[in-house]
């Protein structure tokens, strides 16, 4: 009943709880939720006042009633939530007893659910599963105690909202409303915009979305008018009573009930039927809204036709013009990526992701399937790492169902799943995942019989996929069909069938299409030419998205040209911006094809200068030339390390400042990257000068110092196992054991976290005594380092490198 009302009726929600309690003299340190037990009458009074003012739905005093926030309060979640709901029911009973025709005027109780109050990984430490369990507990008790719906509110992290919504939908039968709190820049604190919020929450299956808190109705108006153009879902609007202002020492809100009503009236015109108030609002504001409901019917909502779109937590991509899906995060045929995945070298993956973004990818395909890896576990880990840095939406690519499910669940956004196909088994296993997590999916036009030769059969398979998806409740706006390219070398006469199928899928089935283009040229010379031509043809036949290497300028160039010629790039703006500097080019020379001719002796000198001056763009080429006459090892020992020592001395003497030191290091990093490539093909010894574990200790969130040390150490040829910040002692010890490490660097920036450093050292000494420990960080000094039994104190990154050098030198002498 309430579920239906959320969809099609006016529902008036209540006003503030928190500010009301403060006005009642709530003491600091007293948990507002504990008052449910110690002062139940107070809540009956507050709820009843809202009912009397006309509210249809009141929210329980359970904003922070989760086990984390209640920890140490002496109250259990069960006791607090049960009592809060009981108080609300009691207020409703009193209202019904006082009201004559209450059967016509049913009142509802919403379980109010606020954020947990701790940041979720990767920004913070709380895991997905922990957050889920906390919400689940609160919601199960709420349902059992008699709530009618769940109101998840004041969320600023879309990921946390997704977790809370999943906990509600998977464990209760109650309707769910999910409301976020935005800032003046149109984003939440964690960076989510309105479009991404809608794209992600719409699919998950919440009954309504909402906006609450932060500011008044005036500032909220823009957000709501954006939202009604993007979704057909019901929207709950609960602004504050304006902006908080401190007058003398008292906080007041600057919007009167009348002004509040006037602004809400504008939103009413946009078709908003669910309204209430947040901080600073009271019965007077709710009464004003009640009058508004009587005076003014809600306007007609705009009917929105959903496009094919996917989103991360902060970026939405709508597939309405040729879209590039970057293909390079897939280990098939990529040696370096395979190595990186095996060695947990996530920095390499992040760099590859960032490079593809820079090259124009709109979405990144992600596949981590290697026989020796636990694919589901690795997929979740890589998603977390990439999403800690990149906002671009990801396409989850796996043939492992378990992997698809866990990735769709733990992806911070609306997942694009690659892929389902016409086989029964695929349809039965993949589509439920797409539905459950509100994802989008690529449908491959193949089935038990393989890839059909003709367009007709492919279109039929596409139809089947769409029909089956719709039966699961997946709208066809969430399906993208891949008509599959065949190789021209083997099936030349069928190549055009893919294109014909694309055209029919677009026109007859009205869904978007995608294609991995480069298959077409397999087995033929000059593949680029065929690929580019085929891509252009496919675009003309209606291809929406291409899975390709965005670093291939011929391919991305073909798309840019297509956008000009089909009037998609209006006034050729993007084209001119990108290619305006090119004048009648006949052939673009490869810069690597013209090596600078230099004498052998001056090449070494030149690399030295390049490092000293930090000319990072020239390092790789110079190394390449040196490799013709020198081994990788001698380049490191004879040129790079002596130069780094000189740069380090200059820094110590104050001749250069920190950015210059780092720029030299960055240059060496490029040189190393080229040297490592040479080792993969040659048979020389590894370049590693030794392995070092680095960590910022537990509870410390500052990692600048540790990051600088890492850059410098890597440039001396040390292999750094970077455990990040806020690292528990046991994780440090395990990393030492797993990698058989003899040197550990620990960093702490705050006095309060030096105790964590002490604990970490004690544990290392006990469980892995062979490791020596270097400590550093702004709050340490040599005396303190000695006191906590560190083996070395380093005042900066340069000194750490010197200590590491002598450590491994001594170790090698003793061997």
């Amino acid at each position, binding site marked *: 009943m309430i579920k239906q009302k959320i969809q099609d009726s006016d529902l008036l929600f209540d006003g503030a709880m928190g500010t009301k309690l403060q006005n009642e003299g709530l003491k600091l340190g007293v948990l507002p939720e504990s008052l449910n037990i110690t002062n139940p009458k107070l809540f009956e009074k507050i709820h009843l006042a809202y009912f009397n003012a006309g509210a249809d739905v009141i929210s329980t005093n359970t904003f922070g009633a989760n086990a984390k926030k209640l920890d140490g309060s002496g109250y259990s979640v069960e006791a607090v939530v049960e009592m809060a709901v009981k108080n609300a029911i009691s207020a409703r009973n009193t209202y019904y007893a006082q009201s004559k025709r209450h059967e016509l005027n049913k009142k509802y109780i919403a379980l109010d659910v606020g954020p947990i109050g701790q940041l979720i990984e990767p920004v913070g430490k709380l895991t997905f599963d922990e957050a889920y369990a906390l919400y689940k507990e609160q919601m199960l008790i709420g349902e059992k105690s008699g709530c009618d719906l769940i109101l998840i509110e004041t969320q600023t992290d879309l990921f946390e909202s997704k977790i809370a919504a999943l906990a509600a939908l998977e464990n209760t039968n109650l309707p769910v409303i999910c409301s976020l709190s935005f800032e003046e820049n149109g984003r939440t604190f964690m960076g989510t915009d309105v479009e991404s919020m809608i794209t992600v929450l719409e699919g998950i299956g919440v009954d309504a979305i909402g906006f609450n808190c932060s500011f008044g109705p005036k500032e909220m108006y823009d957000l709501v008018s954006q939202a009604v153009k993007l979704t057909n879902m019901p929207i709950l609007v609960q602004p504050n009573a304006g902006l908080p202002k401190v007058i003398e*020492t008292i906080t007041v809100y600057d919007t009167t009930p009348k002004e509040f009503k006037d602004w809400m009236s504008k939103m009413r015109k946009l078709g908003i039927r669910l309204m209430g108030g947040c901080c600073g609002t009271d019965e007077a504001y709710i009464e004003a809204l009640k009058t508004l409901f009587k005076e003014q019917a809600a306007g007609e909502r705009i009917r929105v036709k959903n496009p094919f779109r996917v989103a991360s937590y902060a970026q939405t991509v709508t597939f309405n013009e040729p879209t590039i899906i970057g293909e390079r995060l897939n280990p098939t045929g990529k040696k370096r990526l395979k190595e990186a995945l095996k060695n947990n070298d996530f920095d390499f993956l992040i760099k590859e992701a960032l490079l593809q973004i820079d090259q124009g990818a709109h979405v990144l395909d992600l596949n981590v399937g290697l026989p020796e890896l636990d694919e589901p576990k690795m997929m979740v880990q890589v998603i977390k790492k990439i999403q800690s840095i990149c906002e671009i939406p990801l396409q989850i690519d796996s043939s492992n169902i378990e992997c698809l499910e866990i990735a769709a669940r733990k992806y911070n956004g609306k997942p694009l799943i690659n892929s389902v196909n016409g086989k029964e088994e695929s349809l039965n296993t993949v589509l439920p995942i797409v539905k459950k997590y509100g994802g989008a999916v690529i449908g491959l036009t193949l089935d038990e019989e393989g890839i059909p030769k003709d367009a007709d059969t492919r279109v039929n398979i596409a139809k089947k996929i769409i029909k089956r998806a719709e039966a699961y409740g997946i709208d066809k706006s969430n399906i993208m069909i891949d008509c599959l390219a065949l190789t021209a070398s083997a099936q030349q006469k069928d190549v055009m069938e893919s294109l014909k199928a694309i055209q029919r899928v677009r026109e007859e089935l009205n869904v978007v299409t995608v294609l991995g283009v480069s298959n077409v040229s397999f087995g033929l010379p000059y593949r680029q030419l065929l690929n580019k031509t085929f891509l252009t043809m496919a675009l003309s036949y209606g291809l929406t998205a291409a899975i390709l290497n965005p670093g291939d300028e011929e391919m991305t160039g073909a798309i840019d040209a297509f956008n000009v010629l089909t009037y998609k790039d209006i006034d050729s703006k993007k084209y001119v911006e990108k290619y305006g500097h090119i004048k009648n080019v006949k052939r673009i020379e490869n810069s690597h094809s013209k090596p600078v001719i230099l004498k052998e002796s001056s090449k070494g000198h030149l690399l030295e200068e390049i490092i000293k001056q930090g000319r990072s763009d020239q390092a790789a080429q110079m190394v390449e030339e040196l490799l013709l006459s020198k081994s990788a090892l001698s380049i490191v020992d004879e040129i790079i390390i002596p130069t780094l020592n000189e740069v380090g001395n200059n820094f110590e003497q104050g001749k250069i400042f920190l950015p210059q030191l780092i720029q030299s290091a960055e240059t060496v990093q490029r040189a190393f990257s080229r040297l490592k490539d040479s080792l993969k093909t040659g048979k020389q010894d590894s370049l590693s000068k030794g392995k070092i574990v680095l960590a910022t200790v537990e*509870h410390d969130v500052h990692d600048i110092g540790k990051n600088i040390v890492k850059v410098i150490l890597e440039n001396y040829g040390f292999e750094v196992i970077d455990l990040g910040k806020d690292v528990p002692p046991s994780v440090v010890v395990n990393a030492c054991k797993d990698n058989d490490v003899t040197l550990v660097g620990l960093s702490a920036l705050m006095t309060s976290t030096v105790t964590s450093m002490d604990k970490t050292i004690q544990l290392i000494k006990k469980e892995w005594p062979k490791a020596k420990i270097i400590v550093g960080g*702004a709050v340490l000094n040599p005396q303190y380092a000695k006191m906590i039994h560190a083996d070395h104190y380093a005042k900066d990154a340069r000194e750490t490198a010197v200590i590491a050098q002598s450590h491994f030198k001594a170790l090698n002498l003793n061997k």
Partner: protein
Amino acid sequence: MKDAIDYIKKHLSMDDLYRYLSAKQEVPEFWENKVLSTLDEVIDLVELKYTANHYDMQVSPSENKIDVDRGRLTLYSESLSKHLSRSNTIWLVGATLGYKLERVIEKSFITTPTDAVIMDACGSVIVEAYCDWIETQIVTEEDHKIAPRFSPGYGDLDLSCQRAIADLLSLEKRTGIHLNKHFLMTPQKSVIFIIGNNMAMDNMVCNHKCTLCTFKQCAYRKGE
């Protein structure tokens, strides 16, 4: 936001910026330009947000006790009691540069660490200048001379009091600043500070906070 940005651009300390970057002598022009352009970039990335409340306050010098808002919050610290000995009101403030800058610095550490190092230092001086601006917004002339900013962790004021201050200010809800178990803030470029009114001139020994700090070996300590 625009007012704050204009103020920050005008008032931020380039000396501090170069000090954080370990510059011991004048840097070459190329690098000066690089620092300036990075500073502009960082200013574009910040999402400034603060919350400030003004409270009645009473110091009990014999007990080193500071009572805020008639007992809603009690702080114990000899250094802070001395610092606020002539004040009868205080402001508690939480301010941040937001999560976007934090993410970009993290990204830069992977791709271009040089930029990351400069950005980090820029963030540190911007947040200081931002706090200066906040003071201009909340303090009126009647408050007379105010004390230099004092933050938990200075002197003997334990960092743990950040939790109570954060709760009092609804810091998480109003600014997005989160405290971890050991009271450290995320985003990193965030500050909680205390200022008092009626500051007597004889207490104004220094215009920077290093003299309040007991850690003499600090790499960033200003010369005395």
